[in-house]
């Protein structure tokens, strides 16, 4: 049989080459930003769906999906939500078996993006809003990802069970014997938020803090979204870590929950978004990525979700303490990337699960 090349094959080859060049870390410049064009919308509509792997709280993620579906009818959003560390494991497991199911990812562990980028799994794509408005520290220089959301891992308490003046003010306060058996805490092997927070706390306060906290008979849950819900149920009085945005959500739903910004500083958690190179729906993926960074979507995650946005045109929600007024711990994705396995191992040894 004779080999025949047709034009499409050649184009495919060229495309693959271009993609390789684009993915190469040697490239110093990000690709030019892309405005949402009618052609992109049309191509995305042909694909008909986008698969979004995310660690954001499920109702929030579904709300983003619904808003996107309303704006672009005919393209459905499949949300696959689990903890960021699980998302990372799942994508690794799926890619190892050559299953390319994920289009767009959002992880609350920014270190994952470093790994995915290094492994050449991400597609360079810079939405217009990112190029125009996002500060340099919140966008990858090669255009592989940008900070979709920022969140805090706070402490909190149930106001029915604890009086405001008796509530702990700092991480150190949690080690008081009076809190034994009353603390709920999420797990760094599941949640990217908690892994990031554990890294920052261990760096600033030392592992000694966790060593002592582990002796306080904490109730160990998995997701960073769960401790605020456990507080709302009244199952535990205080949470040692968990998502600030869920605390806002349950508080605004009328539950007796109040956040605490520890005096040592509050861990800052950045959750970037990225498009996968092998995305099964590449156009819908790009359209969705653009939507995620639009003012509309960013305002939604602030207003509905209680999250923090890095888009300068987005207004912070009334009643939420502005980010600039909170003493933050320093975010360091590279540091997390280097210590991730070690943190999980040490944590498991201390807390037994």
């Amino acid at each position, binding site marked *: 049989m004779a080999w025949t090349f047709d034009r499409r094959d050649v184009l495919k080859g060229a495309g693959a080459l271009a993609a390789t060049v684009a993915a190469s870390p040697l490239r110093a410049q990000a690709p030019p930003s892309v405005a949402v064009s009618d052609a992109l919308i049309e191509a995305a509509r042909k694909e008909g769906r986008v*698969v979004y*792997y995310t660690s954001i*709280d*499920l*109702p929030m993620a*579904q*709300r983003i*999906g*619904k808003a996107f579906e309303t704006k672009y009818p005919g393209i*459905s*959003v*499949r*949300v*696959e*939500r*689990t*903890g960021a*560390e*699980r998302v*990372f*494991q*799942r994508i*690794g*497991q*799926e890619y*190892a*078996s*050559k*299953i390319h*199911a*994920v289009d767009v990812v959002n992880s609350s562990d920014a270190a994952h993006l470093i790994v995915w980028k290094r492994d050449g799994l991400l597609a360079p794509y810079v939405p217009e809003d990112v190029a125009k408005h996002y500060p340099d520290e919140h966008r990858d220089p090669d255009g592989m990802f940008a900070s979709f959301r920022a969140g805090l891992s706070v402490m909190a308490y149930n106001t029915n*069970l604890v009086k405001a003046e008796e509530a702990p003010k700092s991480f150190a306060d949690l080690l008081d014997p009076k809190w034994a*058996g*009353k603390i709920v805490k999420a797990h760094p*092997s*599941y949640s990217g938020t908690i892994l990031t927070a554990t890294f920052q706390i261990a760096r600033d306060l030392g592992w000694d803090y966790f060593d002592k906290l582990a002796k306080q*008979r*904490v*109730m*160990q*849950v*998995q*997701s960073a*979204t*769960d401790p605020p*819900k*456990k507080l*709302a*149920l*009244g*199952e*535990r009085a205080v949470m040692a870590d968990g998502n600030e945005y869920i605390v806002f959500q349950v508080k605004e*739903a009328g*539950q007796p929950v109040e956040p605490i910004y520890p005096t040592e500083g509050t861990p800052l958690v950045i959750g970037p978004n990225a498009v996968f190179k092998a995305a099964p729906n590449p156009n819908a993926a790009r359209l969705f990525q653009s939507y995620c960074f639009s003012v509309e979507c960013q305002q939604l995650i602030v207003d509905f979700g209680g999250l923090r946005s890095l888009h300068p045109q987005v207004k912070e929600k009334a009643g939420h303490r502005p980010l600039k007024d909170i003493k933050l711990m320093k975010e360091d994705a590279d540091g997390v990337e280097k210590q991730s*396995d070690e943190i*999980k191992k040490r944590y*498991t*040894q201390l807390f*037994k*699960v």
Partner: protein
Amino acid sequence: MTLALPGQKAGRQSFKVDLSVPLLLTFAVLLCVLILLPISWLVMYSVTMVDPATKERVLTLAHFRTLFSDPDLVEPLITTMIVAVCSSVACCLVAAPMGWLVARTDLPMTRLIRALVTASFVTPPFLGAIAWEILAAPNSGLLNKFYRTVTGAEMDSYLFNIYSMPGLIFVIACYTFPYVFVLVANALDRIPGDLEDASSILGAGTWTTARRVTIPLVLPALVAGALVAFLQAMILFGSPAILALPAGFHTMTTKIWSLFQYPPKPELAAAASLPLLFLTVMLLRGQQMILGRKGYSIVGGKSGEPRLIRLGWFVVPAMAFVIIVLMLPVFLPYFALLNAAFSPLATTLVTPETFTLKNFYFTFFELSTTHLALKNTFILGAAAATIGTVLALVISYATARKAVRGYQVLGFLATAPLAIPGIVLGVGLFLAYTRPPFVLYGTLWVLLLAYITIELPAAYQQLQSAFRAVHPELEDASRILGATRLRSLIDVTAPLLRTSVLATWCFIFVSTIRELSAAIMLFTSETKVVSVLIFDLKESGDLGAIAILGLSMLVLTFTVIIFVNRIPGFGSSGLRNT
């Protein structure tokens, strides 16, 4: 399965080719692949490691050394043994008297009681565990709140703490006692009244009769039940994942699962799986020995109905006992789930003012994985039930009629998966089907294989006993009149067996949709099933959606059972072996 068609055609033509031998051989090969492939990978992984220098697999016993020396792995093993022994004993203590009351006394409403035991059997254990969290979490649990309201006790005091070893044992026992109950009640049903009558006529009192006749006759069933309960408790994944992890301890199954989390250690997971496999094989051998030695076959032509013992005034405490026992796995958890489904806060009692459809709306109209998961679950349940029943039917025919040489091997292979706990099978299938030549991971096929493998033993055992009940002379007559083996099977035997076949189908369907431990190892985002979705929701604390999904799952289960049992001509087959 595809060979069945040419077989039928051959029957109609004048050439009478008996295709049963190649057919049965195909099944034997199929079974070998089904079971041996994952187990071989498991064993291979457990004794090898990748040499960092050469990147090649080299033999090592390091994983087993770690397994038996690292306290992080030894402790879960000990915990698992304690949990399994305690819940097995608890099951027997509850199920034996209850089985006796239902089968041998004039306790009223026994049909209803048996139906409710079936309900506790079909309730997925992980769903029960979540419901018990809502009921008996130390601070927010409904029962503890009730206790504090009634006694005016302190804020922090509680009656039950479900996040504890006793809590875990209790919840496991709640959903394993039906195994013991059914075995004991069936055994008691089968004891002919004559034997007890004979004993009484010979002058023995009620107690002596019980001690010398009844108890020895049911003892094998009770011991078998205890072993089954032990096994179930040992291999359960959902309940410990839900109740033990918050309390800060692992069992073997949750440990194996956590070894698959990032960074995955498949070799260690494989090594940790083998003790479970070994223990299961030993237990099953033990059960066979006990049953083999004390297998009183209760033969005899027509024997009298079992004598029902009059309870008299004792009926009141007896009934109270039964109601309390049934409250624990059925009434209370179902109530908790219903409340959580329609309440804004799972652990607050719903009132007409607070009644909300928010969770319902969220689950069915916002949650984008609900439809996918329901569809996958239904497809897998129906496919596994159909293929599994066909497979079990053919194999049990071959063994019951000794149709081919080496039929014992078929029988052994069909029962072998009994010795493979779901999570272990999950690990094995994952290792086997994520690489060439069979890349099935990421498809529904790998889950289908898992479900069929897991359910085959029970299906085979049910159908084998059904085959034994149909005398071969009917088939012989058909064959003498010129039908092939397949034709006589289709025309003669099948109609006689349809009740059992239907019961088996139902059994596999129900067991498939409640399966979590193999699915949790094998699912991908596109092949999610409801049980896995519920587990995902559990980890992020979305109790309302869990309640809605769990209730939908129960509705689906009960609808299928009732529907299948109502098909005209099938009579009330029921889940008699469940």
